[in-house]
């Protein structure tokens, strides 16, 4: 990015919502940074109830198989090695606590409805980030891994000094991109399980039906893991950051690097 252009762009009044009759003052020490475009915000929030529904209905479906685990020793998922099992997904108390047993038809009917919304939302997100150029702010760069390690160490209070960033730091770039990849993997393994005869090439690509199920399950766990870290980080980051995911704008110091300026530099 041309740094001179970026600096002068930063000084420009915010263009998104300002008419000529209402120029933003030049002398402010802060500015409103257009952080998240409207489309990104919609897609982000649509995912919240939809993924919740998909995972919840998934548990209802999965129960139906895990209930047989003790009579029929097929691949029901667990943490363990060889004959040692540390944890089995899921223990009886968990199912009973969440009233999971015998709701498999609800699970199936919700799963095969909300899958459409999840898929459409995901495809729309890929198209949007690709066509708008937003992918440049999200995809990891060469320096992202090093930055991510530094950011993590700073987050853990082991080191000081955050690397420079625009919209997202290296850790965020890696986390959000893997999240999108996990979403794609959910869709593809889901399809491989849903149509294992008609799409048997896809199913074979994942190592067969049982393996596709295994990947589907563990990718869900990966998404849940992302979600937990995400929530903690959002709480730690505070209101200004959270608000930006709703309103799109973040209050920034004028001297902070501007994602909007970078967006302009693509054109």
């Amino acid at each position, binding site marked *: 990015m041309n740094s001179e252009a970026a600096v002068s762009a930063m000084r420009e009044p915010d263009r998104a919502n300002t008419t000529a009759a209402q120029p933003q003052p030049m002398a402010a020490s802060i500015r409103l940074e257009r952080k998240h475009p409207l489309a990104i915000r919609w897609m982000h929030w649509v995912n919240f109830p939809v993924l919740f529904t998909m995972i919840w209905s998934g548990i209802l479906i999965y129960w139906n198989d895990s209930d047989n685990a003790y009579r029929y020793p097929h691949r029901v998922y667990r943490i363990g090695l060889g004959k040692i099992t540390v944890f089995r997904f899921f223990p009886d108390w968990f199912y009973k606590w969440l009233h999971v047993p015998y709701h498999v038809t609800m699970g199936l009917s919700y799963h095969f409805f909300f899958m459409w919304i999840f898929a459409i939302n995901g495809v729309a997100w890929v198209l949007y980030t690709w066509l708008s150029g937003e992918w440049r702010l999200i995809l990891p760069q060469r320096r992202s891994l090093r930055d991510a390690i530094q950011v993590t160490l700073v987050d853990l209070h082991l080191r000081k000094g955050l690397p420079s*960033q625009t919209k997202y730091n290296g850790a965020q770039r890696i986390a959000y991109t893997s999240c999108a990849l996990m979403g794609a993997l959910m869709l593809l393994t889901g399809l491989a399980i849903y149509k294992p005869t008609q799409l048997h090439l896809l199913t074979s690509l994942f190592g067969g039906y049982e393996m596709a199920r295994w990947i589907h399950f563990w990718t869900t766990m990966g998404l849940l893991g992302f979600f937990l870290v995400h929530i903690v980080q959002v709480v730690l980051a505070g209101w200004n950051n959270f608000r930006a995911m709703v309103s799109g704008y973040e209050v920034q110091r004028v001297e902070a690097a501007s994602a909007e300026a970078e967006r302009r530099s693509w054109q």
Partner: protein
Amino acid sequence: MSDEWPEAHGEASQRVEETLPPQDEKPVAQSASSAGEDEAVQNNEAQPADPQEANDVLRHTLESERPAISEQTLADAAVLATSRRRTRRAFVGFGAAAAAAYSFRRYLKDAPFDQMIPGLLHKNYAWNADVSREILRDHALAPTYPRSKAKTLRVNGVFGLKKQLKPESYRLQIVGARDAERSPFYVRDVTAWQYEYEVGTSPEDQGHDTKTDPSKMSSTKMAPDGMQQKTEEDENRTGRKPRGLEEAGESHSTLLPGTPGLLLQLEDFLPRLQRHELVLQFKCIEGWSQIVQWAGVRFADFLEMFPPAPIDGKEPRYVYMETPDGDYYVGYDLDNLRHPQALLVTEMMGAPLTQFHGAPLRLYTPTKYGYKQIKRIGLVAYTNEKPDDYWTRLGYDWYAGL
């Protein structure tokens, strides 16, 4: 994550006071002018005719609140005012979207159910089936496996099989076949055939089916409102009681007395059809799968031998099958049963079918889940009415295409 400005307003003002000396009054007024207009728009008030008036008002209030005020403070305040306005607007939109999502959830829960699942989701199953029929067409062949990987299938659901059928009393009823009247197997009423059963129970393992709640294992508890009554009415209508004694009740598609058709013994058609062996992966909607070896004849060949009579000049769209006692019943797309791997099975793992695996004749097709693989077929009927289906009545997808 990158929150570098959590309390922008406070910090900004503080810094202004520390570092900047108070400035002339004139720039303040200029700067306030824009902030003032902003404020007016935000409060949705009418725009003053003369901007100078607004400036005066604003300068007055701001000066009274904070006598020594800097241009930067005012500018920052203007930024924050814009932020507040945008935030308010965005959160109203956000709240509206959340409310819409919640209403949709309530709608799914409260709107009328169709065959034990929310009506919209039931429609969605039909939509998914149409998409699948259009795009995938059920043409692809399922992968086959070496015989060494195959194992005897686990028994999972014995509806319609609980009583031991006397082999000599077995007949296959075919309804809707072309030129049936001219066939030597034609009878005026296929429903008049009496199947006979052994006394006593089978030593075979009945398995453990987890699709239904054991505490609700009776049709009165399992059946949705009105279905029990409907079933009783149907039984009175058909006069064929007792049929459909399992959870789902009696099929709407079961035959009325006096339905003509063909009545066949296995020897009447099996020896004339080519035998096929296939090792395929069986998949249950519960989640498990198993590789099994099957042997029998292709359903496509059976359809050649007993082609359906056209209805309104066209081939009927569906096939309906049920067990001899009518307890279990399944509907199919006729097209789907032409799949070259759809078999009318007589042997599993190199041995004749046992009672709980559907002796003497069952279906296996790799394009459907296990609950569509009907065992002990008593009736094959060609029809244009979408046939009733045991597990669909209990909330499962009718199409169930793999």
